[in-house]
């Protein structure tokens, strides 16, 4: 009913010049508002639930806002469950993946951008094709491989696997960023007496910082979010990550909503921060390949 009345108001004939502009904008704002509510709604609902005391939670809800908001779910989550271990494992794995991915991708991206050598195209497209191999094809042989290497239920095992899966996109991303650094700057540094290695550290490394940030954020988000490998390759709190820990609050017979929602807030925070931090570079990297190609 309210929606209808706004619509009619919007389409009513404008008087004068200024209102005409407004009339054009209004339905757009309505759509944007609806979209934002659709996106933010579930997160907000999760947060509200996490601060609702359990006795209010079990009663069929009549009010949306909890009457006695409390952070006791967070307290219990960290004290009674292994979630703190999960958080630590996830952080450790994510940092490892980011460092390893950025170093490898920066080296590979620079090689593919700056050198012309036989097999270059094959490597470029090989890296692209590798990314098309389905996870499900690899999960069984990877399980056996990690078992043989003694890397099952091991954070290092997860780091290696995640780095491999983040590598393709990161390498293409880095290549794109290095492509944009003018060769002239590098040549100037060589003329000024830099060696090739020095010019890499003094020219390419600092100038590709946005690319490093984008590739690092991508690697971080990927490893923080990954679920399937972590579920299959880890067995206890020594290596289980946040997504696996979260999924375990859904039991056969009951679901711990208080733990799920408070743990969910913990899982969302780094993504929110990392994403706001490097959103621009990531979007640029994400879209550059497709738009150019």
């Amino acid at each position: 009913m309210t929606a209808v009345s706004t619509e009619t108001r919007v389409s009513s004939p404008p008087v004068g010049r200024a209102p005409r502009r407004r009339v054009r904008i209004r339905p757009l704002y309505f759509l944007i508002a609806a979209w934002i509510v659709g996106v933010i709604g579930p997160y907000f609902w999760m947060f509200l639930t996490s601060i609702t005391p359990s006795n209010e939670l079990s009663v069929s809800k009549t009010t949306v806002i909890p009457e006695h908001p409390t952070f006791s779910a967070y307290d219990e989550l960290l004290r009674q469950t292994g979630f703190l271990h999960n958080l630590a494992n996830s952080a450790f794995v994510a940092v490892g993946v980011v460092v390893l991915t950025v170093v490898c991708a920066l080296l590979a991206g620079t090689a593919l951008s700056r050198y012309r050598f036989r097999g270059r195209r094959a490597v470029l497209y090989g890296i692209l094709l590798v990314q098309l191999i389905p996870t499900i094809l690899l999960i069984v042989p990877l399980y056996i491989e990690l078992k043989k290497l003694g890397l099952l239920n091991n954070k290092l095992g997860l780091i290696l696997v995640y780095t491999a899966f983040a590598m393709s996109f990161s390498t293409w991303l880095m290549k794109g960023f290095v492509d944009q650094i003018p060769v002239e700057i590098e040549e100037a540094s060589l003329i000024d007496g830099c060696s090739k290695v020095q010019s890499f550290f003094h020219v390419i490394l600092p100038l590709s910082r946005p690319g490093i940030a984008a590739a690092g954020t991508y690697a971080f988000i990927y490893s923080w979010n990954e679920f399937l490998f972590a579920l299959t390759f880890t067995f206890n709190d020594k290596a289980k990550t946040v997504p696996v820990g979260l999924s375990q609050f859904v039991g056969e017979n009951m679901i711990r909503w208080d733990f799920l929602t408070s743990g969910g807030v913990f899982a969302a925070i780094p993504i929110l921060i990392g994403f706001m931090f490097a959103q621009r570079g990531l979007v640029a990297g994400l879209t550059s390949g497709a738009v150019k190609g």
Partner: protein
Amino acid sequence: MSQVVTSKVNVRRARRAAELRKRGVPWLMLTPAIAILGGFIIYPAANAIYLSLTSTNLLNISAQKFVGLENFRRILQRPDFWESLRNSAIWTFGNVAFQLVVGMIGALILNAKFRGRGFIRGLVLLPWATPSVLVALMWLWILDPNLGVANHMLHALGITHSPIAFLSEPNTALPTLMGIDIWQGIPFFAVMILAALQGVPGDLLEAARIDGASVWVTYWRVVLPLIMPTVLITVMLRLIWTANYFDLILVLTNGGPANASLTLPLNAYLTAYKGTDLGSGAALGVVQSVLLAVLVIIYMRRVRKSELA
């Protein structure tokens, strides 16, 4: 005399070494990346093909036996294989189609001028960056038959009289899962298409407007052809990704009820780790990969033809 010769040889040697070093440098820089890709993607991929030809049990991996195409023969006889194939097709094409249409509208909205545009462009991408488990659990809570807000709202609005168990009824399980995946995937389409829209030259739109073309005609005749390459690539990336994605289904329904939401990759996973039959699991993985490769090749050919025409 001999001194001159040796120095000449030395110079040649030094040059050769320099040449070799020059040629070796890019490969040296590529080594770490290639080693990791080779060790943890290419080698296991080759190994998967071998595994699919063996009888291997999760609980006793070393007792492996070569059985040829036996696994594939048995897969084709399983009714759940055909069920999961059908569900996979619905899941993949349905999700991508919806995401494309809504994402396109979303991109057009984001391309309009409004206050706080940069911030909102980042904000709408949030679901895409959220862990799939978290997305699954947020919606599990919203859709809960007893305590969930979705059923409360439907009841309050008078649309339903009794709560719907969205995820545990055979008719609603797969569509509900698809709805959640579409929610998460729309931003990706919107942002990719938005990037293409920003590349459409303003004077072309101006020219169309001066020639008296309506907004609608301008969109179909000017904008759409220009953004088509990006749309086609995004659709392909998304088809591959969606076909392989089953985290959401694994967490929310585990393929149930009665295989109503069982897709092909999930079937492979459950065969390997619940049925402990790694050989058949690998074989289902090979089937999935081959079907996807065929899909990609057909798609690429079609796209090339339509672009030539």
